[in-house]
């Protein structure tokens, strides 16, 4: 025991050091990883608060929150989960808002593959079409709606492969295992343009808008770091970053 | 009864046949395999030149071993005797050198005959029976394969039948059992029969009795003696037990530290004055003779050997049976006169050949000639001095105990 004492002392001295700034612990949908990191960096510089983020699929994060995960806010990939949380009394009523609207792109890692998206889908000139699981991911649902709008969903079904989320749908295409796939514009866009491969940005009217909602959770309602972060997300600085990554905002 | 078949039988050494029912010299139908015969005539026996260098162990042997009878490789553990046996079997790949059997090269710089192609039988210290097979399955395992391999060769060479092996080792009642249901002694008997069933031309036995207690040993030794009397193939018998060696060997190779110390016919080696020191209490000689007479009243047998006679306890052997007796140096005393008024039965004239030192400074070893056979006597140096023993001197020896083996 005597040997442990200096160690314990060191811990007890270190702990109070974190008191001076508030800390927020939030859960963020995986597709929003890149813009969120950029936003948090700016937010921490501007406010002095610190934010700890867990990225994951919305479904998993939702299940974890239901089962007592210590998150103070959720930035979901859809509207349904934040709504549910609000109904269940876990989400703070009135805190919910749409922080980003996703855009869908038919994309190929091959720089010449996608010139005319609808024509390509109709021609069937590809080995696989990768989409996110429509049951799980709003992007997947939007992909199916797009296929239906083009009237090719029947023809294409045998060539469909599904990623569990939009990140995996992208991975299948990026590794070349699927020639093309519906991915999030944010995954292939940097600084306002598609930086790799070729893509066709799906017009917004071909599918229901992919609204991503955020909600503050009961445990975070009195944490200034959380409330300030939500305000910050709706500010111009954050919106500029969000647009840069291929999302729209309200 | 025959001991090792005499070399004058006209049978080439390479055709070391197992002929349970025929005498060696009746063998005339084996002349077909001419080439092999010629080869084996050239270099009968086992030639083993082996060198191994391992950390903490080395083996450096260059020996020619006889093509007949039982050759014992004797030494303490670590002396290299088992390793030498494994080299001959082809189980030791690390060895370099040359192994030749009756003119066939089994190993040299260019040749390596793998174990399964060497015409050997091998008995391990632990029986090493296959637990997933019955006793009969174990016996058939090697037999089937040797027959398959030998198909091209003369089938007449399949002279040692499975039935005979079973009968010889007395395991007929065990055939349906699993090895786990056998006693240690039974297991080892099955293992010996299994080795014989492959029709080996050379039988290698690695301390087959060492893992057994005294009672089991006594159970198996008679079978080994039957083997010895029955088999015409050469046997290499590794052992560290002087009593086994005395009982079974015709030829003795003693080893120490990976090197051969002495090699020769058993009595030549046993009676060497420089070797008995290492044997200690077991120093002594063996003599081969014949049961000549039975004294019913006193339950004694007269063994005719060395142009003389020795009386031993009646073991039940029949008149005319071959008998091997062992005389330990410590049981032999020396006198100037044939003794009278003594309890000792066996008193023989002898001639002193040489005197040597024994392990203890108080003791001396005397090598004597008894009608052409060497006998060792151990006595105190004081007695030797008082008797004035010197080479060529005629004396009488008294033998306190003679063991019929």
């Amino acid at each position, binding site marked *: 025991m005597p040997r442990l004492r200096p160690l314990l002392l060191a811990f007890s001295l270190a702990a109070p050091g974190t008191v001076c700034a508030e800390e927020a612990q939030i859960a963020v949908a995986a597709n929003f990883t890149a813009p969120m990191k950029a936003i948090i960096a700016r937010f921490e510089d501007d406010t002095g608060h610190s934010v700890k983020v867990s990225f994951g*699929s919305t*479904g*998993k994060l*939702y*299940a974890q929150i239901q089962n007592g995960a210590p998150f103070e806010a959720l930035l979901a990939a859809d509207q349904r989960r934040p709504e*549910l949380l609000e109904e269940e009394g876990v989400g703070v009523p009135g805190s919910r808002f749409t922080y980003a609207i996703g855009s869908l792109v038919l994309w190929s890692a091959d720089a010449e593959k996608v010139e005319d998206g609808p024509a390509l889908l109709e021609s069937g000139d590809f*080995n*696989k079409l*990768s989409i996110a*699981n429509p*049951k*799980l991911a709003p992007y997947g649902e939007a992909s199916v709606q797009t296929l239906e709008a083009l009237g090719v969903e029947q023809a294409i079904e045998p060539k*469909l*492969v*599904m*990623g*569990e989320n939009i990140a*995996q749908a992208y*991975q*299948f295409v990026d*590794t*070349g*295992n*699927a020639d093309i796939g519906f991915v999030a514009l944010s995954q292939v866009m940097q600084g306002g343009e598609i930086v790799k491969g070729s893509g066709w940005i799906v017009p917004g009217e071909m599918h229901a808008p992919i609204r991503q909602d955020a909600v503050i959770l009961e445990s975070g309602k009195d944490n200034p770091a959380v409330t300030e972060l939500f305000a910050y997300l709706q500010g111009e600085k954050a919106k500029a970053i969000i647009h840069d990554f291929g999302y729209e905002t309200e | 009864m025959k001991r090792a078949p005499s070399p004058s039988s006209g049978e080439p050494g390479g055709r070391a046949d197992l002929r349970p029912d025929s005498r060696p010299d009746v063998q005339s139908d084996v002349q077909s395999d001419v080439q092999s015969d010629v080869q084996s005539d050239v270099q009968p026996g086992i030639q083993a030149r082996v060198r191994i260098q391992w950390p903490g162990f080395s083996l450096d042997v260059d020996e020619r071993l006889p093509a007949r009878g039982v050759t014992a490789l004797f030494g303490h553990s670590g002396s290299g005797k088992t390793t030498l046996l494994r080299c001959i*079997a*082809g*189980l030791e790949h690390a060895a370099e050198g040359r192994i030749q059997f009756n003119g066939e090269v089994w190993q040299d710089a260019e040749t390596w005959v*793998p*174990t*399964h*192609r060497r015409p*050997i*039988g*091998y008995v*391990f210290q*632990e029986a*090493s*029976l*296959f*637990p*997933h097979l019955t006793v009969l399955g174990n016996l058939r*395992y*090697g037999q089937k*394969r*040797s027959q*398959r*391999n030998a198909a091209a060769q003369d089938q007449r060479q399949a002279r040692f039948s499975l039935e005979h092996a079973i009968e010889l080792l007395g395991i007929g009642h065990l055939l349906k059992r*699993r090895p*786990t249901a056998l006693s240690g002694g039974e297991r080892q008997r099955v293992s010996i029969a*299994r*080795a014989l069933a*492959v029709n080996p031309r050379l039988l*290698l036995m690695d301390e087959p009795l060492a893992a057994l207690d005294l009672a089991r040993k006594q159970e198996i030794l008679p079978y080994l003696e039957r083997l010895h009397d029955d088999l015409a193939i050469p046997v290499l018998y590794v052992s560290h037990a002087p009593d086994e060696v005395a009982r079974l060997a015709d030829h003795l190779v003693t080893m120490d530290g990976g090197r051969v110390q002495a090699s020769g016919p058993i009595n030549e080696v046993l009676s060497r004055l420089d070797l008995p020191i290492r044997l200690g209490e077991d120093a002594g000689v063996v003599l081969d003779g014949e049961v000549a007479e039975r004294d019913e009243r006193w339950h004694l047998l007269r063994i005719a050997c060395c142009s003389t006679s020795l009386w031993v306890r009646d073991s039940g052997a029949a008149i005319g049976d071959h008998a091997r007796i062992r005389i330990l140096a410590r049981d032999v005393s020396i006198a100037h006169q044939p003794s009278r008024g003594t309890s000792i039965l066996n008193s023989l004239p002898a001639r002193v050949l040489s005197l040597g030192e024994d392990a203890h400074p108080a003791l001396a070893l005397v090598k004597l000639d008894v009608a052409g056979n060497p006998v060792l006597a151990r006595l105190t140096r004081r007695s030797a001095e008082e008797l004035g023993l010197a080479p060529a001197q005629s004396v009488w020896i008294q033998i306190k105990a003679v063991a019929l083996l």
Partner: protein
Amino acid sequence: MFLTETDLEAIALTLRLASVTTLILFAVGTPIAWWLARTHSRWKGPVGALVALPLVLPPSVLGFYLLVTMGPNGPVGAVTEALGIGLLPFTFWGLVVGSVFYSLPFMVQPVQNAFEAIGERPLEAAATLRASPMDRFFSVALPLSLPGFVTAGILTFAHTVGEFGVVLMIGGNIPGLTRVASVQIYDYVEALEYGNAHRLAAVLLVFSFLVLLVLYAWRPDRKRA
């Protein structure tokens, strides 16, 4: 019906995948285990470590590497395309390849242990009884290590049934082709269909327990040793 049609389809696919994988691993894993058990080569360590890698490697890592190497730009993908097989991801045989890698240690290690437990002696005895190396393997080593093979087979099968990460990475979630039970459960959970998830999960749970029960209750004839 207790389970939906797609559930049954997923279960049938899972069992098919596990059976095929186990059979292939018997053929592939046995020589590796034999070599590992007998060699004194300096490659024994590295190869043993490589075989054990899936034990510690996250399935997502293995799955990702498989996705990349079996893709059109990967070496395996190039070979399969050149052979006219096409690309393996999103196919049943792609899953089989992934499962074979993923379950390799579960086959190799018990069999290797069994081979090692035999020791040299029975094989040497067989050699002196005229058995060639191949003969020794089939007539002595195999029967003596049968308990190891049973253990390895059950573990491999069960482990493949429980496989998720690799299938997720290279499967593409195609019903009847690559959507195995574990992925189906994951989908249910993600889609908040907890009732369906519970039912299918319960089936897997009971199945896995029964398999392990057989394994632990089953005792080879120890007396033989």
